[in-house]
């Protein structure tokens, strides 16, 4: 299971939604308005030590929250922010996260064509 899938499962465990029903990876499901997606985004290059004995991967995690109600979308985005931000030295699923830190507060992206509201939260992730 990838680090992204580990976090997807973690969101489900913490009642953010249900995988395959309201939590998806990479793309929104066109048939589900009220949903959350997790995106593995590019971050800085991994750092390593001499001899490649210790490698720290540095991807970024993008989360988009979509809901037909603006307030609900915002509240769920805040819940995810509170759940993941400032996580240190924690093993989630099969991945050891050295840290998960928000890059910024949750912010409003805009309204989609079906008049739903989308919020975005982005995290700097350190794995190693």
């Amino acid at each position, binding site marked *: 299971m990838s680090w992204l899938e580990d976090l997807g499962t973690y969101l489900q465990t913490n009642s953010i939604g249900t995988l395959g029903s309201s939590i998806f990876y990479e793309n929104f499901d066109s048939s589900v308005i009220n949903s959350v997606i997790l995106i593995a985004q590019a971050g800085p290059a991994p*750092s*390593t*030590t*001499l*001899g*490649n*004995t*210790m490698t*720290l991967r540095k991807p970024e995690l993008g989360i988009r929250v979509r809901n037909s109600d603006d307030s609900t979308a915002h509240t769920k985005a805040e819940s995810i922010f509170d759940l993941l931000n400032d996580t240190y030295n924690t093993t989630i699923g099969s991945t050891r996260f050295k*840290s998960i830190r928000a890059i910024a507060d949750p912010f409003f992206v805009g309204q989609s064509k079906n008049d739903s509201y989308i919020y975005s939260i982005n995290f700097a992730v*350190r794995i190693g």
Partner: protein
Amino acid sequence: MTKEHIDTTLSTVSIDGTVIEGITPGSLPFSKPSRDKKEVTTNKDTVRRYGMKLLEPGEASFQGIYIPNDPGQLALKTAADGLAEHTIQINITEAGIIYEYQAFVATFYQSEEDENTLMFNCDLIVTGGFSKTTTSAAITSIECAAVAVAYSPSTANSALAASANDVIIMETTGITTDTVKVTAAAASYIGISYDGGTTWSQLTSATAAPFSATYWPAAGSLAKALIKVMETNKATRFVNLFIVRA
């Protein structure tokens, strides 16, 4: 002639034969030597004349991720607390080149890197010159006097492999003293240290010397010593020697 970049990523840095883990790539501790001129003008000269002063070997620094239990970093800390010279080796694995010099560990201290990672920093004062070699000093064997002991590697007492960095001597029950005999005919210096390389006692090739009674292990325990063999135009070789008592 092959022309290619030599990558240093897989290189190692060691102090007295103990590899230091966690070092940040790009910080291999090469010192920057310098040399000043001196005036040697005489009364007969019409312009100034200069000679060269001795080469100043300089200083080196390196840093890395702090690993509290890493033997190499522990050796750096111990060295920084003392005033002894130590052997620093930079092994450029990809090119098969070993750079070696003697240095004092001036400081070993922690800092925080911008990824909120605890780092170590080390400053070295180089004394003497660099050597650049491709092979290490040769050691024929390391053995003890007691009979019926077991060696690991099993041929350590007759033909020690060039790649062997550890020798374990398992004493039989009841043995309370023993000797160490290192055979290295071409060596310019052979030494044994019981304190991780801080102080050394000189050995003679193919001549047995008592293992220190101070450090001789109690029954059921083990003791560790460090063997150092130096040879002209070769990298100094270090072997960990473990004495295990039944």
